[in-house]
């Protein structure tokens, strides 16, 4: 197995970067989009609420694989052509934003309403209150669930292999095909996914302790 590992290493190194890039990239972009959708969901403006609700309904209610295939194979029919990597990044972002928006919405509603009242009573406006008081607390509440979403997202990047993105799963498949050593290759990348997610779990736990230390 070691010889196979050494042979696969140059390709795997690039594949790890791709997997991490797709996963973390989609997580960051999905966090921004998800936060916007969460704010729309709790907005006083009904059309915005409806829009956000529909978004979550569609992107959480359909398989990620279908979304990836639609973007990569479907959109060119309408003149929107994207290369595999941006297609995958877009699909992962849209998909994770749907889940993350619900995480943020839960976090925001979990902040005690007295916090809004205290801020309003000192004449703080809606956006300042969100930025200074509510969101910092909502993030702390949402952190464990956000961590779970990130881990799920790292694993979901494997679906990008279907549209020829050279991430870990696709590299394993290709080397497996050329050497007929599928078992070892998939065990190898399986272990690598696991390892990445362990590191992320440790990071999340550390952040959680650091951020919520004062609030307990």
């Amino acid at each position, binding site marked *: 197995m070691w010889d196979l590992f050494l042979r696969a290493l140059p390709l795997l190194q690039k594949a790890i970067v791709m997997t991490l890039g797709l996963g973390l990239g989609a997580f960051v972009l999905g966090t921004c989009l998800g936060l916007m959708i969460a704010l729309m969901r709790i907005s006083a403006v009904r059309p915005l609420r409806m829009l956000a609700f529909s978004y979550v309904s569609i992107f959480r209610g359909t398989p990620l694989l279908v979304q990836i295939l639609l973007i990569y194979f479907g959109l060119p029919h309408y003149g929107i052509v994207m290369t595999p990597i941006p297609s995958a990044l877009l699909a992962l972002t849209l998909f994770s934003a749907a889940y993350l928006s619900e995480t943020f919405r839960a976090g925001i509603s979990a902040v005690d309403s007295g916090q809004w*009242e205290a801020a309003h*009573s*000192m004449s703080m406006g809606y956006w300042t209150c969100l930025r200074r008081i509510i969101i910092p607390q909502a993030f702390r509440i949402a952190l464990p669930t956000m961590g779970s979403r990130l881990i799920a997202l790292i694993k979901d990047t494997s679906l990008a292999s279907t549209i020829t993105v050279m991430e870990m799963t696709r590299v394993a498949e290709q080397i497996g095909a050329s050497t007929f050593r599928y078992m070892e290759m998939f065990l190898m990348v399986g272990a690598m996914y696991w390892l990445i997610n362990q590191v992320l779990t440790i990071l999340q736990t550390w952040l959680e302790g650091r951020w919520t230390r004062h609030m307990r």
Partner: protein
Amino acid sequence: MNTSSVRVRGLKKSFGDLAVLKDVDLEVQAGQVVVILGPSGSGKTTLLRSLNLLETPDAGTLEVCGHRVDIPSHGRFDRATRKQVALLRQKTAMVFQSFNLFPHMTALENVIEGLISVKKVPRAQAVERGRQLLAQVGLADKADSYPAKLSGGQKQRVAIARGLSMDPEVIFFDEPTSALDPELRDEVLSVMRELANSGMTMLVVTHELRFAREAADRVVFMENGRVVKDCPTEVFFGADSGERIQQFLRRY
């Protein structure tokens, strides 16, 4: 200067079928300390929360620190009214029963938050003022403590300092000691007494009769959503305040 800080006319508020405020009038002169007493559910807290529009009344007019808000008969506040609400809130402060300190900020950060994010005071200047205010409520040494590490009485004193940071013309106290153990109440009450002596205009919803007796200029007694009695403190606690008041006072 004998101007009114708070003037309320015909205030009405219902929660569903329950009428909590039924046509309430109230006037508070600048510099006065007014305590609002009354049994639970009499509308005291709703009245107080209406004064800075944390609760939106159904009808009535209020004028607080020179800012007038007419409650529209239906529909939302227009832009001009919302502006009045924002200005009114800048001139008032509120102290809550459950403190409502910002848990992710230290005591000092809590106190200077309004200065920095609402009044746009430079940070160094805000910190200096914040330390002053913490010293005033006897918590100079707790500036860097987070709320979770403070006792209830200390939290409420930080909340008072936070309210004072905005240089309010009136402070509303909503049952400021009700969530505290008896031995922690005194430290909060003594800070409030000092404020009263310094000439601050205060409206206090409370069950602390001793505080009312010692610090209030006037007592407003509410029952079933109405002001039943509004009189100088010595009259309220005197022998001729009426059968209902005597009955209420006996229960405490």
